[in-house]
């Protein structure tokens, strides 16, 4: 191709006065942006390769570096924006589907940011978590309709299998293969230390991580990678992945170059073969098929493991959830359209699915209207960014939240959205040994634990402010929420009043 239509997106700005040519930027850039010129005695940069992952910026000991968005733009046009033009150029150049990763970056409404939280004043005391117990423990799973008593009249204290969590947050599915061994290890260790759960994703469970089984959710996805009896028995729960918020309606494709060594062994597929997850499960073409898979998995695990069904939030999510709640599943995980991914067609990521806030509210209400809310727990995911997002989700009706992007950020991800390149400079979304070693699980797990501990503190403080001292009293407690700047329809779907009402 003769003419390069696209000017480098980012500019590497180096303060020569501060640069000590230690070359750490050069050593740390897998994209090979930086190089040292012995002739000039200075560092050079090839900006065409820069993805703005900020690794060099973070490691530069003299803060001599910054990466800025290039001010070089096409002529201003509200309709034909810069990104739109660039995408056209890219496709005209490649003839291919645009690929991207992580979550939808487009300016759709973020309802979390239009919902405000209540606090106690005068008529009801706020509760100080430093002085009073403040509980965040939750149990996920089916609750029976009625208690039972034995012949002596004593309560039969048995529940269907549950997942017990110290706080209502779990690390959601990210497969080994899409992320590194060390990233998985960090998640597993942090989940164990925190008393929560992480999710294997569809890549199977590395043999080293069976030890973390009680805090592991093992996923069964359409590709069935790495699924076998021991795997199903290893976890605290089994998740059937029907869909993913970032790319509803399509499957997955992990290129063969990432299927190496342990990844191939764990997935139980030959090295170098592409790992293709079909769009549907080819044994599930309808709800009754799902029920069969749910019970197949329960049979295989002697009814000891709760089964989660994960779906992408799509238009008729409430109806789908209702069907799942009657399928024998114990937990429904709903993934909103802002959820992340290791790779997705850009157009799908940015245009398919609905926001988790609306999906969650609709599902929770629908299940209550049908009187089957107790059949299942609801887990909400797809860009839960903070403790207050968690609180709002719980108040809307979720039992717990899934986080993934936030967890990756804690591990060092800078959301450069080039996971699909396999050259993650932070050692997360890569299988290159020299890169994966950049994520020391001692640090990774500690940062995850820190993040969750911080959120837990915030959750306690905020619900304490509401006069609530246990998280279960927040679940579905929509009176604790008010909307701002939302339409009647949005308020109606969310089931909340407007601020001031």
């Amino acid at each position, binding site marked *: 191709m003769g003419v390069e239509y696209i000017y480098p997106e980012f500019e590497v700005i180096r303060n020569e006065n501060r640069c000590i040519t230690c070359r750490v930027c050069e050593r740390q850039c897998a994209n090979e942006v930086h190089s040292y010129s012995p002739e000039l005695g200075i560092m050079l940069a090839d900006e065409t390769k820069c993805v703005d992952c900020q690794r060099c910026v973070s490691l530069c000991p003299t803060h001599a570096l910054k990466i800025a968005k290039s001010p070089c733009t096409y002529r201003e046009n509200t309709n034909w924006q810069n990104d739109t033009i660039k995408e056209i150029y890219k496709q005209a150049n490649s003839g291919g589907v645009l690929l991207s990763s992580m979550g939808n970056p487009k300016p759709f409404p973020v309802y979390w940011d239009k919902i405000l939280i209540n606090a*106690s004043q005068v008529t009801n005391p706020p*509760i100080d978590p430093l002085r009073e117990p403040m509980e965040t423990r939750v149990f996920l799973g089916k609750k029976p309709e009625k208690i039972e*008593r034995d012949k002596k009249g004593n309560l039969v204290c048995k529940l269907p299998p549950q997942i017990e969590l110290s706080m209502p947050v779990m690390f959601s599915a990210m497969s080994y293969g899409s992320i590194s061994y060390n990233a998985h290890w960090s998640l597993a260790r942090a989940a164990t230390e925190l008393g929560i759960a992480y999710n294997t994703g569809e890549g199977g469970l590395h043999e080293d991580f069976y030890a973390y089984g009680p805090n592991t959710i093992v996923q069964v996805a359409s590709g069935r990678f790495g699924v076998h009896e021991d795997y199903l028995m290893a976890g605290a729960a089994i998740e059937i992945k029907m869909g993913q918020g970032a790319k509803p309606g399509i499957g997955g494709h992990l290129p063969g170059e990432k299927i190496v060594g342990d990844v191939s062994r764990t997935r139980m597929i030959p090295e170098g073969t592409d790992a293709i997850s079909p769009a549907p499960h080819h044994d599930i073409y309808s709800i009754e098929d799902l029920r069969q898979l749910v019970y197949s998995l329960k049979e295989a695990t002697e009814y000891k493991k709760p089964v989660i069904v994960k779906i992408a939030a799509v238009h008729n999510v409430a109806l789908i959830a209702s069907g799942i709640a009657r399928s024998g599943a114990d937990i429904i995980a709903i993934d909103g359209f802002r959820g992340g991914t290791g790779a997705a067609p850009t157009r799908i990521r940015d245009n398919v699915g609905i926001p988790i806030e609306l999906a969650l509210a609709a599902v929770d209400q629908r299940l*209550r209207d049908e009187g089957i809310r107790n059949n299942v727990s609801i887990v909400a995911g797809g860009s839960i960014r903070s403790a207050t997002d968690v609180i709002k989700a719980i108040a809307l009706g979720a039992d717990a939240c899934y986080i993934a992007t936030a967890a990756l950020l804690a591990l060092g991800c800078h959301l450069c959205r080039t996971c699909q390149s396999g050259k993650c400079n932070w050692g997360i979304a890569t299988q290159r040994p020299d890169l994966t070693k950049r994520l020391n699980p001692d640090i990774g797990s500690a940062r995850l634990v820190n993040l969750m501990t911080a959120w837990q503190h915030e959750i306690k403080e905020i619900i304490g402010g509401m006069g609530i001292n246990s998280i*279960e*009293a927040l679940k579905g*407690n929509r*009176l604790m929420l008010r909307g701002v700047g939302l339409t009647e329809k949005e308020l109606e779907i969310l089931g909340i009043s407007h601020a001031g009402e």
Partner: protein
Amino acid sequence: MKKEGQIRIPSGCAIAAVISKEGRRMSGEVVVNAMMPMHDRSNGLGGGFAGYGIYPEYKDFYALHLFFDNRTVRKDCEAFLKERFEIVKSEHIPTRQIPAITDEPIIWRYFVAPLSSVVTLMQVDEKEFVARTVMKINTELKGAYVFSSGKNMGAFKAVGFPEDIGVFYKLDEYEGYSWTGHGRYPTNTPGWWGGAHPFTLLDYSVVHNGEISSYDANRRFIEMFGYKCTLQTDTEVITYIMDYLIRRQGLTLAEAASVVAAPFWSTIERKTDPAEKEKLYFLRSMFPSLLVTGPFSIVLGFTGGLMALNDRLKLRSMVVGEKDDKVFIASEEAAIRVMEPDAENIWAPAGGEPVIVRVREGAI
């Protein structure tokens, strides 16, 4: 302003109760007088009482107390009732005209027996049938409101200060083996007669002081089971929770108490008796949405007994005292002293620790 049912109404309050473990009947005046020293805990926007054992001559019939906005609705309601019940008695509830109580609706009572043919047709038990009928009237029959529906018991409530309400309803002329009383301090209602306490369903009555922070979590859960929280008050939802746990699920009073005021997980983990530990663990994980948080002190009245319960942090005052066969419960000790100047063993029950008092078996 919106009234009960149109908007959630939290409120602060005064409560008092008395019971004779020997089933000796006392004049309603006892509990009416107990409200006097707690006058400042109410604001004149509501009060009420419940007496148990007050209708010995009609003890086999459900005593339905209703407010009607007008005569038309009373007639419609009566017609509806007749489709379902045999009405053995229908009368005005006697009242005294006093200046402090105004704007009263039509206050009526029926003693009824469900028509067994209808009950059979609905494939539910008698109590569930009565409960559903009450829900139906309260949600569907505009202008009619059932505020008491148990057997051999009755609730009496109005807008005003409780001591005036006692006089208004002539409670000095009733005798019961147990009484509960309530003075209300709602913060955002003009006061509506139906919104006053006690709140009842069948023979459960609840007087409550507090503002629960778990309200909507509890409401949205309990409404899955046919309850309609028409008043949007704490008392209402607590009454339904108690009905659900005790009557529908078959929990004991103590078990129900350890659902709504569940011990902290740390407390459960410290329990040394494994059976108790397992049971508490089970109840909390089985009914998480029925945990009631925020401040409350309640007295649950039921046939043959009372249960007093504080929230698990004890964010509201409540004391208990005894004298001979009587047990007294009130927001303040002063109220107990009015009922029995020589009350003994006065104590403040710990948060979440239910105080259950029953009339001796066979005494009533």
